[in-house]
């Protein structure tokens, strides 16, 4: 069990990238991008975990109880907001892409090449 969460991290990354590379629909591609980001959340929260510790909130436990790392949780919170922002922008672009190109297949969304 010592390394299993980290194997899961690599797996999620692989699945997300596979989804992006083989995607035929732009919204599916954007969701796969979210999956790639999710692997980072698992990694962040995984490295900060302390066995047998409580959550870092001390309103109901004494102050010196061993608690998990609060910094990675704050980082993950920041990342969630960043990802939501990027996803919103990408989805807006997808709406416009559908209007201009008439399709959402990434292979067809090509105006410039070569």
């Amino acid at each position, binding site marked *: *069990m010592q390394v299993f969460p980290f194997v899961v991290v690599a797996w999620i990354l692989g699945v997300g990238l596979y989804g992006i590379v*083989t995607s035929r629909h732009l919204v599916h591609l954007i969701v796969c991008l979210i999956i790639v980001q999710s692997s980072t959340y698992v990694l962040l929260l995984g490295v900060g975990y302390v066995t047998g510790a409580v959550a870092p*909130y001390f309103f109901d436990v004494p102050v010196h109880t061993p608690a998990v790392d609060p*910094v990675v949780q704050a980082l993950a919170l920041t990342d969630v907001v960043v990802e939501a922002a990027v996803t919103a922008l990408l989805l807006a672009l997808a709406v416009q892409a559908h209007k201009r190109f008439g399709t959402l297949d990434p292979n067809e969304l090509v105006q410039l090449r070569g």
Partner: protein
Amino acid sequence: MTARQRLWAFLTGMAGLAAFYLWGLAGLPGFGAYPGPYGDIINRIALAQTNATGVVSAVNFDYRGFDTVGEEFILFAAATGVATVLRHLRGERERAARDEALGVNAPPTSEAVRMTALILAGPVLVLGWFLASHAQTSPSGGFQGGVVLATAFILVYLAGQFLALRRISPVDITDAVEAVGAGGFAAVGIAAVGMGLAYLTNFLPLGTIPGAVSSSGTIALISFFVGLEVGAAFILIVSELLEQTLLLREESR
């Protein structure tokens, strides 16, 4: 590349990348054996220094508050970007038929959905406010509260009328609220600069009861601004997306 070539190139590449990644991850201390000083130090000193029992919020809004300023503005830039990309363009007209927005051509919203949405809107608003104001106490804060606040507004749309959503959250006001939220957060930091302290120093009184709503100085204030900004940003984003799909149709070329 054709799809097949791409797939094989990717699979070979990913195999190598996964092996490389796992080789690196193998060097980590095992799961549950967090080594490092940062988290432990913060856990020890956060309550004494900031009077906040919610240490994650103390990290987010005080110790690493500057990161949060950046992240606020990322959300701000993204909402601005969404507005830019989806704005009213030349050649597109708001569909004269308001009946579409009123749902005449679409199947009417069921009464059950409408009632539930309208009943929930109020309590959800209160819940959002509760979450946003208890950052220093419990696992909540400006972000969570802001998103729940935005949901309250979107429930109005679910109750059947997009134009009602537009009426209670006009673009200009939502834009302004969002900017005030983001700017307010940055301004709290500048107030510290004005006093000769470093940017974002916690200069307000810390209160006596740890974790009370009025404690922890600037953390509560920042959480309020963040709640405003996140709520407004999400309302803006969702209503821009809805507006594009519902109301606008291209003029025939």
